[in-house]
């Protein structure tokens, strides 16, 4: 062995040195077990992500086959005519995944090119907010913070953007940025609250962000149900007035496609977060705090302050996703459904993307494709859209359990530290 010495064998590595344990209780910031598990999940290797998707698609195939009428019918006489059964199974699975592809990427059943690639633009449209929110969750992961509050942050951001969008009459060049900024600010404050509570009191961010989801939901619901707050004038539904034209994200590929500027903003956010994490000193400190808060503290980095800053930025990114929804995808008015599950899907996206900006971009695109293609699966093949959700959920499951994936594929365990 040249140069490096191999670390000692496992028993030595695990054996706490006599000095490891301290009589003092004066170490409030020690890395907890949950943090190290979180770190493991967030930093799993790329291969594990690909394999998780593969496994999920495989199990999804079984689900598709099981739920297919013809497969079930042919299973009744499988021993008499096994060919029928296999054919039906193949048809169901092949049909499902080609439908997914047609709905998400390229539709070969229509003639003109614009319609053919329309599914791809739909995928990108769905991917926009997923990427932005995924960045928000992923950035927090890098500081070892679990931001489960995407839903609440999106709702508040959407409400803020919505309010700006229907209240003011401004030229677009001012109105649109103002609405987006309002969304990012609202998201930042809502997430920053959790960061502040963690930094000041040690309150666990998982609990705080989850509870803030409820607080946010009911606050927005209340505001949407009250005349004079957010409710559309003269209406009795919990819904706001539609956004004014000057605050709506313009379409980027012309009116034939639904793809709006939100996706471009998400791409800008990817680049921004990449720079932040890899090239800036703030990102360096965020990573240091995430990897080893005690060492960061001993090196003069203010861990609590870093938590607050991270949550502010994370919330702003999730807020961008909220703006994406309210100012781009659903401009007919703010409702409490505006987050469309993105707040939670973002966690999956961040996990699948290993909390790396480019990984999140890829994972966001994949999930956008699932969303876009799920409809066409249902429409053309009669496959319940739930199956797509099952596949998505299985991906999370396989990613969150790296030892499971490693065991299935007999990958070597990670090197001992």
């Amino acid at each position: 062995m040249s140069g490096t010495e191999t670390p000692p064998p496992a028993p030595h590595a695990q054996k706490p040195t006599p000095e490891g344990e301290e009589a003092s209780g004066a170490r409030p910031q020690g890395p907890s077990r949950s943090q190290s598990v979180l770190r493991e999940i967030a930093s799993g290797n790329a291969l594990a992500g690909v394999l998780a998707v593969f496994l999920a698609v495989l199990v999804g195939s079984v689900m598709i086959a099981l739920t297919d009428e013809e497969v079930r019918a042919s299973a009744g006489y499988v021993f008499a005519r096994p060919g029928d059964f296999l054919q039906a199974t193949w048809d169901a699975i092949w049909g499902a995944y080609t439908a997914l592809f047609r709905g998400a990427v390229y539709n070969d059943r229509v003639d003109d090119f614009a319609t053919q690639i329309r599914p791809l633009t739909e995928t990108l449209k769905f991917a926009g907010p997923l990427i932005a929110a995924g960045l928000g969750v992923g950035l927090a992961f890098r500081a070892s913070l679990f931001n489960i509050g995407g839903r609440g942050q999106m709702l508040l951001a959407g409400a803020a953007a919505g309010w700006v969008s229907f209240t003011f009459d401004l030229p677009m060049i001012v109105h649109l940025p103002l609405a987006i900024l309002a969304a990012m600010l609202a998201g930042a404050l809502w997430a920053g609250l959790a960061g502040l509570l963690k930094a000041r009191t040690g309150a666990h961010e998982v609990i705080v962000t989850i509870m803030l989801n409820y607080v946010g939901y009911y606050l927005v619901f209340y505001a949407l149900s009250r005349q004079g707050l957010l409710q559309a004038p003269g209406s009795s539904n919990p819904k706001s007035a539609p956004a004014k034209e000057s605050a709506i994200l313009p379409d980027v590929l012309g009116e034939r496609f639904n793809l709006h500027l939100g996706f471009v903003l998400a791409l800008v956010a990817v680049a921004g977060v990449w720079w932040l994490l890899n090239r800036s000193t703030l990102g360096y400190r965020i990573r240091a705090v995430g990897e080893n808060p005690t060492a960061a503290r001993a090196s003069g980095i203010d861990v609590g302050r870093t938590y607050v800053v991270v949550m502010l930025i994370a919330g702003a990114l999730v807020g961008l996703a909220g703006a994406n929804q309210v100012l781009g995808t659903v401009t007919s008015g703010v409702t409490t459904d505006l987050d469309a599950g993105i707040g939670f899907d973002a966690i999956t996206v961040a996990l699948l993307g290993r909390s790396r900006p480019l990984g999140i971009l890829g994972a966001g695109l994949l999930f956008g494709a699932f969303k876009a293609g799920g409809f066409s699966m249902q429409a053309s093949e009669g496959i319940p859209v739930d199956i797509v959700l099952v596949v998505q959920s299985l991906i999370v499951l396989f990613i969150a359990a790296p030892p499971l994936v490693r065991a299935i594929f007999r990958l070597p365990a990670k090197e001992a530290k």
Partner: protein
Amino acid sequence: MKLVLRNITKRFGSLVANDDISLEVLPGEVHCLLGENGAGKSTLMNVLYGLYQADEGEIVLDDVVQHFSGPGDAMAAGIGMVHQHFMLIPVFTVTENVMLGNESTGFAGTLDADAARERVREISARFGFHVDPDAIVEELPVGVQQRVEIIKALSRDAEILVFDEPTAVLTPQETDELMEIMRQLKEAGKAIVFITHKLREVRAVADRITVIRRGAVVGEAQPTATNADLAALMVGRPVELTVHKDAPQLGDESLVVKDLRVVDALGHVHLDSISFEIRAGEVLAVAGVQGNGQTELTEALVGLQDHVEGSIKLDGKELVGKSVRRILDSGVGFIPEDRQADGLVGGFSIAENLMLNRSFRSPFVKRGALRGDALEAFAREKLQEYDVRAPDIHTHAGKLSGGNQQKVVVARELSRDLRLLVAAQPTRGVDVGSIEFIHKQVIATRDRGIPVLVVSTELDEVVALADRVMVLYRGQVVGIVPGDTPRETLGLMMTGERPKDVVA
């Protein structure tokens, strides 16, 4: 009972932890297993104790091949282990701890405590242990707790006793007492395996010495061998054990600590009325048994303790109340005692670790952005200068050996403009070769006219580096004495006693 380990090989994946090791221990002898941290000593003993199964080779007791599938089998066969970390339940009495796992029960499952108490008393008397069977374990001194472990093994008729780094937690006096106990056990016909990396102890008590390096036996030695010979065998090359240093060139009083008091969040007092000063160009070594306030002292100096009273003045400027960042920026170098927890970010590259406390301003930062090329050039230079053995500067710090990790920390701290160096356990868990290097760096720092505070629980290190020695006991200063104070005196002071003839 005679123990023979024959050609033991144990692999973990591609790593060979024990490579064809053979060992023979006779009744009435102390066989010393000497090797650096990570050489494979503990793995071998875990194989012997049934915690691991050997891939090849066999364990033979009195000519009978044994197949242990767990510690229970090993104990039943007469092997007793005294672990480095005591396997005792603190709130139980001595008797209860000795009974645990081996309870003799009477009618309807009632515990027969009297018989066990009698057994403790008998063993204690036979070897002169002076252990009260009814004492609560957590109220006993560490040395006595260790004796409880020994009693526990003896009460199960152990004929072979394995001591795994038993002196790490002991004061020098307690260490001497343990050596005496080992001799008695030896005379009573027990076979003793003594695992250690401390040369002094080996020579004091061993009948035979087997040296292990990188999982393989590299040689046998006689107790008459010199420290230098043993160290060379252990490391694989000649090592300088003593640090050459000239008389200190003393300057002004740089660090002045006055009436320092440190309390934790629960109100426990960890340090009280600590006053001392260090002059420029001087090494003050803080000696004491682990857990007597050394950690709190170093943390208070760099601002890591929250409840600090009193005054810490560096070159006339007050440090108490300032943030860690301000203190480090004002020129305090800090080598923390636990490099994995406080010194390094394991998932960061060597280069990234080298700027850990300089992420706010130049030379590695320009308008909020990292200056990658400046950092890389710096890292390459330091890798060379500090002899860090790593493939390159992008290697993760967590993958380095202890000695190389420590060199990264030392490189980072010493390459700043220092006005004070605080080094806590600078060579703990570090191989002998790196110890030599780090000691030289500490002395070189002193010779640049920088005041140095070294905390160490190893008397060898204290004696090697110190110009003056401050002994801490239960959070208070026992005394500050010259660096050439005899070890016996220092050892006595570490128990809280203050010899009359000592100059304060």
